[in-house]
């Protein structure tokens, strides 16, 4: 599990619920890609009850033990944290910055001047601080909001350190009483009280949750009534031509990951996890299932990614 803001480094294992379970044959073909990795078992674990989904989960299209997953993911992600920005830019040709900017502008966050209460934000899987700092900057610049609080939550301590380092380098939000960096599992958020947050954001992180529905349920729990769930995530491309172009690009991604970050496997996982993530309508249904209302989504760049939202009433 490793929630994070990096669209190209979502290494968190994807636990498959019944509707997202992949076939064993799919896993077999993918084993070739991971056969040299010491982190990943090349043999699907055998479950005594013959119920694979109970003890195993997926890492891209590979079936791995649940208990091993966090370590595998943590190790891989920690090794690439230092090249986070460079890789994102190279892999997305810089477009991820536009998506994130649009995400923040559309959210339009910030306490208004005449409003009484400050806002409590939580950015899950946001170790790098991209979205969290962006939201705080936006609120300050547009609404002069310097009182709202932000919890930046990530399960990977190395990514949080990267975010803290960035805050220190930029000279803002480091040792700021308004900003807390917390190592937390996005599916549980044990340290976050129920009904305590106004806005929950997650950017390129929920795809990597072991149990996406559990993550959505937790988002619902921590939000106050009237709170907003806001998610930026890869989705299904709606334009056939663009889809064809993306499929070709996806073939190059792991090679580029190998060159830039010396990590072929992670980028192979990225491509597979994107393919595995539910499409816009299905994810919308999952958000509704968690209890959110006024649910909707906006596809960006022909559906390469999408902004999803829901309101806790």
């Amino acid at each position, binding site marked *: 599990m490793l929630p994070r803001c990096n669209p190209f480094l979502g290494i968190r294992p994807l636990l498959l619920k019944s509707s997202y379970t992949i076939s064993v044959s799919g896993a077999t073909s993918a084993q070739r890609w991971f056969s040299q990795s010491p982190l990943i078992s090349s043999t699907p674990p055998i479950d005594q009850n013959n119920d694979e989904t109970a003890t195993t989960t997926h890492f891209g299209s590979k079936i791995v033990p649940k208990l091993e997953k966090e370590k595998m993911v943590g190790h891989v992600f920690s090794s690439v944290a230092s090249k986070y920005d460079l890789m994102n830019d190279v892999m997305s040709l810089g477009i991820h910055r536009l998506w994130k900017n649009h995400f923040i502008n*559309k959210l339009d966050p*910030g306490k*208004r001047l005449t409003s009484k*209460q400050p*806002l409590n934000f939580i950015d899950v899987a946001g170790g790098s601080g991209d979205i969290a700092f962006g939201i705080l900057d936006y609120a300050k610049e547009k609404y002069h909001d310097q009182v709202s609080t932000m919890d930046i939550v990530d399960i990977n301590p190395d990514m949080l350190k990267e975010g803290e380092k960035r805050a220190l380098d930029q000279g803002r939000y480091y040792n700021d009483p308004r900003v807390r960096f917390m190592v937390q599992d996005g599916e549980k958020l044990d340290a976050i009280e129920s009904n305590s947050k106004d806005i929950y954001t997650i950017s390129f992180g929920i795809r990597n949750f072991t149990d996406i529905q559990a993550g959505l349920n937790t988002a619902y729990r921590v939000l106050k009534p*009237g709170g*907003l769930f806001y998610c930026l995530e890869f989705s299904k491309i709606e334009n056939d031509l663009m889809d064809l172009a993306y499929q070709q690009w996806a073939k190059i991604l792991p090679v580029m990951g190998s060159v830039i970050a010396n990590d072929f496997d992670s980028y192979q996982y990225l491509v597979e996890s994107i393919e595995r993530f539910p499409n816009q309508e299905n994810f919308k249904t999952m958000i509704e299932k968690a209890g959110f209302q*006024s649910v909707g989504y906006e596809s960006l760049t022909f559906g390469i990614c999408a902004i999803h939202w829901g*309101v806790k009433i």
Partner: protein
Amino acid sequence: MLLNRILSKNVKLSINRAFHSNTLEYAKAATLSPLTYNKDSVQYKILSNALNKWVPKKGFTDEAITSSLNELDLSSSLFSVLGSSNSPSIFRSISPAVMELLKFQLVSKRYQLTENITPYIETAKDKLPSLETLLIERLKMDQPLNNQLSSLFNQLIIPSPLLFNVALPELFNLSDDLIYFSNEKDHHDMAWYAKRLGVSCAYVSSKLYMVKNNGENFDKTIDFAKDKLHRIMNLGEYYNNTEEYAWYTLMVSMNLVKARLARG
């Protein structure tokens, strides 16, 4: 057309239409489409309060929404909730929440206009109000916003997704409602579209007249609207005659060709 109209009014359509009756298609709509919430929602309460109390004083602005939030003792995080379904546009300086307020003004008043009218399918045609009555009723609804109508128009006509996804579809939805819920005869094919286009033109020109008058002397606006609608209806007569003549000519021409061909 009638079936489509009935479905769009009272029914939540499924993505895949079935060829038989099913509960999904005939379920009552959960939201005031195209809004994503219903009358019991917090969004509706905030926006209706803003529209009724604060927009007449502060216009379609963030301040009107903030005042409404403060009055209802709600957090400003609801700004993000209100604007969640809208995207900022490079052509606009207004926030997504204000875009929602503009959308709410159009949609909620359209529903409000017809909420107490039972449509033709369930009642006699002669018991329904006239088209003119409904048009004037809709114009009267905006009387409290006299001073803000100009800025409302300015925002709605800027080329942007708000114009093409909200303002124009809502205008045609309104025209559709005005005809459907009145005792006006309905039509099919091109006449259906032509009639709605004509009513839309009458409504927009009356509204512009109202803006120009700055809301003063509303009787003049009513006279203008009546006159405009009368002209449109006359034009409709011309349209019908032209269509009938064109159809007649087409038939004659076809018969002539057939006769020629039969003769060899």
